């Protein structure tokens, strides 16, 4: 699974209190959301997209399912 720039933008701009089960995803999402709130530039978005996709590539299904569940609520 790979997130597009638009998906990552939507994720980082979400005002819903998303909840993840995977610790790495919870910590990374919180950090990236805070970074993006401070500097919502295309470069920041690209860097965030890379990190999310690295995480999904590394951890595979469990991480992807956690993301899908959290964002579908």
């Amino acid at each position, binding site marked *: 699974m790979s997130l597009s720039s638009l998906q990552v933008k939507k994720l980082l701009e979400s005002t819903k209190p998303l909840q993840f*089960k995977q610790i790495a995803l919870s910590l990374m*999402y919180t950090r990236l959301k805070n970074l993006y709130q401070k500097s919502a530039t295309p470069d920041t978005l690209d860097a965030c997209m890379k990190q999310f996709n690295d*995480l999904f590539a590394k951890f595979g299904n469990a991480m992807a399912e956690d993301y899908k569940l959290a964002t579908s609520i």
Partner: protein
Amino acid sequence: MLLDFNKTSELIASGKLLHIAGTEALLRKLPKGNWIGGSTEYFIGEGGGVVTDSELSVLVLDFPEFKILSYDCGNISNIASDGYGNGLTVAVIPFNSAVHTEYAREAPGYADMFIKPVVGWISGLNLGKSDQTPIAVNGITGEVFTDKAVALSALMPEGKRADIKVINIFAQDESSPIIRFSSEGFAAEKCLVDGKEVSFADYIAENSIDTALPLVGDYAGLGVNVSIKSIENGIVNFYAPVFADIDYRFAVKIPDYEAAFAAKINEIENKDNIFACNCILNFLYGNLEGKKLDGFFGAITFGEIAWQLLNQTLVYVTIE
């Protein structure tokens, strides 16, 4: 497992890769070998919580390919990226050192952090003794550090993956107000309580808040504790930094620590961990000495690492 000095030395001589926790005095005397170590005098052993200066907590890490590296403030940012692509990094950082502060503040931003598994702990001392210094040891070189972290990175076997897990018996008290801080740091004078700026020390006093309870930050479903160290001259000092942009609340009171841990541990299906450590504040406030924690043996620590610095948690690693 808890072993005496001679048995630990024999294991080192066998060439096995070891993670060792024990007193500064014992660690300094151990022979060189494939091990890293950190100081503490508090442990969870098979018989329960124990305070001892005559035994060491020894974990055998059965991974043939590994490296042991030391880090100061100048290169600690490489700790995750130095790890293997499919590996596990276990770090020991001396309490109250500059590298401890650096890691606490900056670790979430280090390259490859959260992508590669990084666990570990903050080494400490016996709180009742004045002649000890928190240390980290690189067993290969025999170097003992008060100002550097030591990390062991191991390559996981083909088809296996190290999975970091956290047991946190605390949760945010949803009936208490949201607390925010305007900047990150190990201390705070002011905070925002439901958006209104107040003196944090006054807020704690006026609301008779038990400072044995940590603040719990909301990290997208994960509660991350920040424990209160002291309140001095209107300044609240913490064991880990608070961050701006995180919603904190004080934790719900835990009437029975042992029962709370037992309940959390009973929920866990796979207790087969290769590494576990638990916080000194859990040990002390929970009166864990002599009490059993089924299956999560290891060092009692002055801070836990699950990628970033945590407080008042039990961190463990399983192989999936």
